[in-house]
């Protein structure tokens, strides 16, 4: 089975922030935030036409500053948050804000990326509210409540985790509770993830080499994996189907999988990258598929069957066992499934800081490297059919 070639889209600016449009379940759409100190920063909305293998883009201006983190609301397609650098008077502050995309972006600005003229007067994002953190320090990321109604976000600012309530159509944000990490030295959250399990009452954060779990109801720490990685932990992700499983990656070039009930040892170690791993993502539907991006300019798709929610492959119910399917069934059950690297993608020339699965198509993902190159790839068909059938 021949796989489709990757689709590459080049941004003019350097970029670190990438997210899929979480609330969109039909179109394959990614949002990219750029980093430029000299020009107005943009948010590129990348639409991918799976059938024709065509990318179309829209550009929205983000004049507030260079974007370090971006995340889309799970409830409202048009709402998103960014963390951006604001430079004023030789001071650099990272802020968080909630934005709304102008309603007409979709109608008017669908054009091919080859056409440069349209970018002359791109539309601006509409600011809904600031996640005012002047008293809390620099925001490193903003997290939406998974599968929530778009009313709750958490921002991580230096050593604070702040839970915000967005009211009045998200135009106002008030801190409902907060937690502070205390300890020696300058502690700083580097990454975080809101767990989709346990009624969304748990949060995992990373600072330096440690991973901590928080209970949002009491805003207190529930677990702490000291020295989870040899060096800095760069990213976290929760297994969408197994509530205690957590993946982390960091500067020791490793990806580790944890069962937070037993934090002494990782369940599994992956050591495939040759430099820091910046991003790790579970596939939303098939959690054996794990995507990692690294500053060795590679994206690696791994098949972690042994610790997935389907360790024996997709189990067919007995009812489905109709006449012709018997053979298939036998084949599947006896097949020993091994953890393996499915593929290494080398389309990038610079460090890859973000990878993201599409929220609409579980077999599609995007990766973004610092030089502004966005690559859209698919899970190899052979594997796809192997998982599905």
């Amino acid at each position, binding site marked *: 089975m021949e796989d489709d070639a990757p689709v590459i889209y080049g941004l003019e*600016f350097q970029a670190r922030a990438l997210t899929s449009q979480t609330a969109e379940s039909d179109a394959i759409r990614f949002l990219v935030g750029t980093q430029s100190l000299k020009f107005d920063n943009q948010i590129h909305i990348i639409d991918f036409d799976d059938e024709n293998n065509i990318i179309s883009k829209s550009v929205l201006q983000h004049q507030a500053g260079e974007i370090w983190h971006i995340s889309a609301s799970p409830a409202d397609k048009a709402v998103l948050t960014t963390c951006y650098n604001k430079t004023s008077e030789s001071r650099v502050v990272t802020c968080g804000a909630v934005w709304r995309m102008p309603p007409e972006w979709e109608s008017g600005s669908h054009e091919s990326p080859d056409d440069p003229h349209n970018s002359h007067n791109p539309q601006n994002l509409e600011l809904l509210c600031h996640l005012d953190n002047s008293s809390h320090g620099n925001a490193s990321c903003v997290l939406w409540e998974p599968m929530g109604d778009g009313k709750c976000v958490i921002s991580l600012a230096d050593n604070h985790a702040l839970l915000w309530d967005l009211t009045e159509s998200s135009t106002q944000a008030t801190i409902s509770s907060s937690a502070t990490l205390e300890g020696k030295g300058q502690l700083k959250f580097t990454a975080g993830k809101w767990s989709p399990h346990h009624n969304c009452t748990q949060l995992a954060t990373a600072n330096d080499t440690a991973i901590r779990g928080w209970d949002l109801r009491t805003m207190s720490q529930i677990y702490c994996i000291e020295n989870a990685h040899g060096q800095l932990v760069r990213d976290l992700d929760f297994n969408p189907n197994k509530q205690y499983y957590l993946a982390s990656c960091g500067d020791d070039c490793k990806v580790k999988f944890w069962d937070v009930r037993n934090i002494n040892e990782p369940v599994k170690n992956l050591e495939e990258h040759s430099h820091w791993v910046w991003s790790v993502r579970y596939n939303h539907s098939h959690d054996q598929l794990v995507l990692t991006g690294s500053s060795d300019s590679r994206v690696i798709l791994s098949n972690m069957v042994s610790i997935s929610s389907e360790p024996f492959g997709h189990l067919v119910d007995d009812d489905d066992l109709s006449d012709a399917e018997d053979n298939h069934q036998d084949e599947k059950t006896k097949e020993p499934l091994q953890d393996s690297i499915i593929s290494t993608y080398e389309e990038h020339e610079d460090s890859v800081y973000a990878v993201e699965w599409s929220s609409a198509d579980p077999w599609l993902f995007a990766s973004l490297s610092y030089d502004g190159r966005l690559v859209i790839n698919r899970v190899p068909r052979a594997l796809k059919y192997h998982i599905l059938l």
Partner: protein
Amino acid sequence: MDGDINASAPATTPPDSDPARKRRVHGMLKLYYGLNEEGKTVDQAESMDPCDINGPHFDPEVYLNKLRRECSLGELMDQESCMVKQIRSLDSDMQTLVYENYNKFISATDTIRKMKNDFKKMEDEMDCLSTNMASITDFSARISGTLQDQHAQITKLSGVHTLLRKLQFLFELPARLNKCLELQAYAQAVSSHRRARCVLQQYRHMPSFRGIQDDCHAIMDKLAQELRQKFRDGGSSAKDLSECVELLLQLDEPAEELCDKFLSHAQSRLEADLLGLEAELRPPLSSGPTAVTDPYTGPARRLSVEPTAGSPTGPTSLNNPFLFPSLRTDILEFIDRGCNEFVSSLCLVIASYQELFVNRPQEGELASKNIPQMAIGKLHAFVDALATRYFSLVERRIQEEKSVGDNSLLVRALDRFHRRLQAVAKLLPGSAVPSQGTEIVVRAARERIKQYLAALQSFYLNSLTDVRQALAAPRLGGSSAGGGSHLGGPATGKDALASLPELLSTLSASILNQIKSVLASVHLFTAKDITFSNKPYFKGEFCSHGVRESLVVNFIKFVCQSSRQFCESAGDRGGSTPPALLLLLSRLCLDYETSSITYILTLTDEQFLVQHHSPVTAVTALCGEAREAAQKLLNHYVKVQGLIISQMLRKSVETRDWVNTIEPRNVRAVMKRVVEDTTSIDVQVGLLYEEGVRKAHSSDSSKRTFSVYSSSRQQTRYAPSYTPSAPMDTNLLSNIHKLFSERVEIFSPVEFNKVSVLTGIIKISLKTFLECVRLRTFGRYGLQQIQVDCHYLQMYLWRFVSDENLVHFLLDEIVGSTAHRCLDPAPMEQSVIEVICERG
């Protein structure tokens, strides 16, 4: 007689002088007398010639005519005279012969006449003799006739006499038996009784005999009683005992019972021996704190650390295995005692038992009872039971033998043990005892190998600890943790590093020596003078499986594995294992791969003449493993060292406020520290690894940085001229560069040489620098500071790496990225940078 001329011509010579001629004369005479036997055919051929004067068909007429025709007168005259001469000599010959024969005939006649006379005389004497013989026969017949009656009488009388003597014996028997009993001459009594027994049995119906028989029975019962008593007492010697048994057997005692008794008696004695042995096994009760001066804890620290120190001994054993032998008898003594006491008395018992019950000539009714089978069966059971107990004692003792200091004692003990059991094997061919003994020896040997392996391993670990201490000693305070004390770290480090090759050579030499000494110790098991060395186990499996695989190969594997563990356990923080140790071990493993493994295995194979019956670990497999370990260690070393430098760089980037920094006047101290550390790493690696190849570089590589920087500087200058409408903000040149340069693998495996190692470390450090820079925002002076720092690094780092372009590329990336992250990208003049850097 004319015809004879030719033939008799030579006869003129004296006949004796030539035997051939004489024979011819005889031949001719024979011919004359018709006795022609020889040379018939020859004669035949000649004879056809009528002119042949000697032939039978000689025709004088033809001959004469021929002569007359052929010869002249003179010749005829000569012929005639010659012929006359020949005829004359022939005549004289004939006369001589006739005369000789005549003489012989006369003497024969005389002899015959004389014989005739003698025979006549003899005939007369023979006649006389025959008459005499006739008269003798006559006489003798008459004498025998007269003496016949008396002869019969005498015969009868002598019969009566013997009968009477027998009777007398019988009647006297009770008294005799009594007397024998008194004198304890049991053997005589028994033999006497045996002689009389049948008779008494036969004539039992006669009262008098019955009486005798009863008496005898009574006495014999008493005697048997006494014998049994004696047998039971057991105090008597083996010889007495055997005599006793023999007599009892003759007295129809049941053999089975006797066997049992004999054996039980022997058992009690053997058990006493065993108890004696067992007593020695018990830990000494009075183990007071005897001030034993330990001779082993001298400077030469050998295999003195026991892997299993917690053996069940008194609290005073002080964890020192060498105290064991001094407190109790050593194993050789123990085995000796076992052999001398137990095994030899066992042999004695077996021998006398066999003499008594098994090998005795079978007579009469005893034969039918099939005693030998029964006896042998009992003996086997007996020997097996005792031997099992003995073996368990020996095994317990062997298991206590845990100190690996001197193997010869154990081997000698085992040898003696095994040798003595051979005696049992000889005495008792079908017994399982010797094979069990061999098994014990085999088990002991196996155990020994395990102990040696454990000892080698602990030795290795101890040596590593020593090396660690040696490495750590001069650099107190753990300055290797990175970032901390900038002063003194590398300086004192160098002192320790100088000794790295020394440490390596001492380490590998001491390991090799240890292996050799262990091999020598183990080799004792297969020495020629050791009895069990020719057992199949010691010839084959012990050498190949035991020594080669279990000991040597396992040890090498252990070395590799434990080395690899340093990479994993110490892994993440990198602080617990000193990097120098990693480097040292890496070199050690590499040396193993290149030479040591082959050497050790060849040594082993040679010493033990290993015949590979079963598949064994190949040298190449081991070498591969060692190489893998070496590679892993070196990679880890690079990672750890790179990390240490990375941490410094990262802290320096992260903690500074780059927007509000002042104009650079100096190279930052961190950069100097980085260069210093890199230099000391270079020295460290250079001590153990070869230089390696590097790409040729220009005469003054430190200056080349100018062009690279100028390009990046130029590019940053271009930046403001970009119009927002076409924002080409990306670092064009850098991207083009990237297109054509190969992807840089940061944490990639390194080669076994200095340049490759240093390249790896520098790569890691600079990449970290790059990534950290990208996360920050810079002001104008921040950028300039980075420029200065990078130039400084450029000046010093190029010389360490294999391809200086790599350093250029990475530093260029750093400056480029910094310029990119700069709010006010106004780069510093290259000349100013150079001035600052040269100022230091």
